[in-house]
């Protein structure tokens, strides 16, 4: 059955993927067929009005109530370009679908809403009066009605909240089935959270990531760059068991005191504590050999050097200008603080995909952010995202951060098992990174190699060398 799906006019790229992910969570269709979508005639794909084909009211309600970006999911009773057309459409909508919601025992409410224009209170009242041809028999209840009806209008004048003009004015009337509970966002907003880091994920995005990862009670979710736990909080809210690791022990262990740390962030919202937090390096993960397919989802925001640079194990100190064998004297071992080295985006993503390929269950999801440089016009629209033989990329949603950077939320599903060959290829690559790293150390240009790894980002077959770009300095523009 087709439903009218009205979105909030924000995070445009994230809206359909969210509904698609939730449809997979609630609809249980084993056929794996993509959802069917259409937009009203003459509407732009970024219009808030969409139609989506779902199996039942219950599925539509579950999706809408769990989502962050669906303003409402409606059973459409009629639409038209004029009020007359709308009346015709509503009158010809089958009575057996309308009458259960119009009975005298029920209560109802009609809300008038508009997109791209403002309607005065008087106009809104007029619109409601004009609906008199619908035989409402129930009583009006504005606060807690049994049935909520919506009349929604778009206008046909030029600008439309920054969208290309909608050529045709459209009016929709429908019965609300469900809608997003946006009160989650003020509840979890970062400004009232006790322990924050410079790159804490905002609450709305953390929930969107959890939705992309199909989080539900009993699932085990891992974040290898946990930081203050902001992403896992989203997953824990939806019932997941969470586990996180970070290379910075001050963040995971100490925080800013007994009531301001990762644990207190979970406590603050009454969420179950993570089942495990540890200090570990994503480059050399301490998982036991043979451990695989334990996590249902891996959700993370890798350190990609814009706001915070990544670190991995390995000496950065040079002894007499060469990288010699580095030994820690035995008497200093207990309190030794191992040095860390910069971690390039390319290596970080390689390690992440390898870890996810090994540790996710089949059908498990890897959800993470990937940075994109916007200034390079050739890149816009045809960015090549990381690939892995075990994974299928199912959605990519861009969020523009500044005129130079945007980040893309990638959702990948593990379709094929992690084989010996794949593991071996990953080992070879890991060694290669290690050797390169030593080379950079000796050349003395490790900073530029890590933060402008242009030659590595060049995809084979792409003849345009990226290395001529101006050097970029992290933190300068964002």
């Amino acid at each position, binding site marked *: 059955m087709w439903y009218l799906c009205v979105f909030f006019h924000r995070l445009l790229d994230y809206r359909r993927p969210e509904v698609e992910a939730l449809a997979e969570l609630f609809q249980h269709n084993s056929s794996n067929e993509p959802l069917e979508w259409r937009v009203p005639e003459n509407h732009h794909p970024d219009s808030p009005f969409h139609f989506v084909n779902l199996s039942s009211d219950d599925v539509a309600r579950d999706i809408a109530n769990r989502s962050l970006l669906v303003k409402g999911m409606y059973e459409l009773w009629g639409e038209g370009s004029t009020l007359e057309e709308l009346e015709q459409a509503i009158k010809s909508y089958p009575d057996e679908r309308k009458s259960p919601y119009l009975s005298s025992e029920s209560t109802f409410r009609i809300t008038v809403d508009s997109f791209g224009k403002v309607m005065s209170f008087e106009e809104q009242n007029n619109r409601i009066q004009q609906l008199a041809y619908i035989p409402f028999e129930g009583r009006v209840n504005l606060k807690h009605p049994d049935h909520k009806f919506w009349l929604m209008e778009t206008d046909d004048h030029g600008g439309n909240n920054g969208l290309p003009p909608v050529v045709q004015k459209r009016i929709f009337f429908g019965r609300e089935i469900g809608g997003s509970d946006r009160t989650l966002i003020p509840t979890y907003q970062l400004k009232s959270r006790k322990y924050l880091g410079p790159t804490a994920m905002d609450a709305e995005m953390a929930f969107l990531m959890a939705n992309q990862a199909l989080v539900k009670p009993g699932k085990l979710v891992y974040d290898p760059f946990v930081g203050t736990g902001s992403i896992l909080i989203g997953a824990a809210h939806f019932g997941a068991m969470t586990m996180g690791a970070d290379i910075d022990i001050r963040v995971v262990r100490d925080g800013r005191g007994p009531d301001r740390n990762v644990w207190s962030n979970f406590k603050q919202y009454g969420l179950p504590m993570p089942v495990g937090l540890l200090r570990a390096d994503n480059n050399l993960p301490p998982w036991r050999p043979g451990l695989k397919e334990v996590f249902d989802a891996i959700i993370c925001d890798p350190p990609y050097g814009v706001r915070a640079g990544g670190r991995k194990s*390995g000496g950065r100190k040079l002894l007499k200008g060469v990288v010699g064998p580095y030994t820690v004297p035995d008497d200093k071992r207990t309190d030794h603080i191992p040095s860390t080295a910069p971690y390039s985006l390319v290596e970080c993503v390689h390690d992440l995909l390898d870890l996810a390929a090994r540790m996710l269950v089949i059908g498990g999801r890897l959800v993470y952010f990937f940075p994109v440089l916007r200034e390079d016009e050739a890149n816009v629209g045809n960015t090549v995202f990381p690939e892995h033989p075990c994974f299928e990329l199912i959605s990519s949603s861009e969020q523009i951060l500044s005129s130079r950077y945007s980040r893309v939320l990638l959702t990948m599903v593990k379709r094929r098992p992690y084989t010996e060959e794949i593991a071996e290829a990953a080992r070879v690559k890991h060694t290669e990174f290690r050797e390169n790293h030593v080379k950079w150390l000796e050349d003395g240009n490790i900073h530029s190699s890590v933060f402008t790894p242009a030659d590595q980002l060049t995809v084979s077959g792409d003849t345009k060398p990226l290395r001529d770009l101006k050097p970029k300095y992290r933190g300068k523009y964002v």
Partner: protein
Amino acid sequence: MRLLTHNMLSSNIKAVANGFPLRIDAEKVIHKEVDLNPDFLRNIFSRIEWRALADAARSLGYAELPEEAEESMLESEEFLGKFHHALLEIHLEEGALVCPETGRKFSVSKGIPNMLLHEDEV
């Protein structure tokens, strides 16, 4: 650190062939009640190295787990309860995990195991 985490970790020092299971040096062990989730336990059961879990639990003073376990035992509520307690409710708060081959200690403080390697171990 719960024993679930312990069951997943090994000493990944270069040249260590078998860093699992890590021995536990306990200074402070605490118990925290956690809601029992049977689905989670049934899912995770096949990923657990049972012998390592039973030994670790015993070394922390909980000797109720059988030496061997198999899928069918998950039907029993009593077994689920014990499995749940050992896996999720016993916490090593202070102490260390010890590499079975080299004796290297990975300290555990405030419940967080520090698995980062020194420069000469990577």
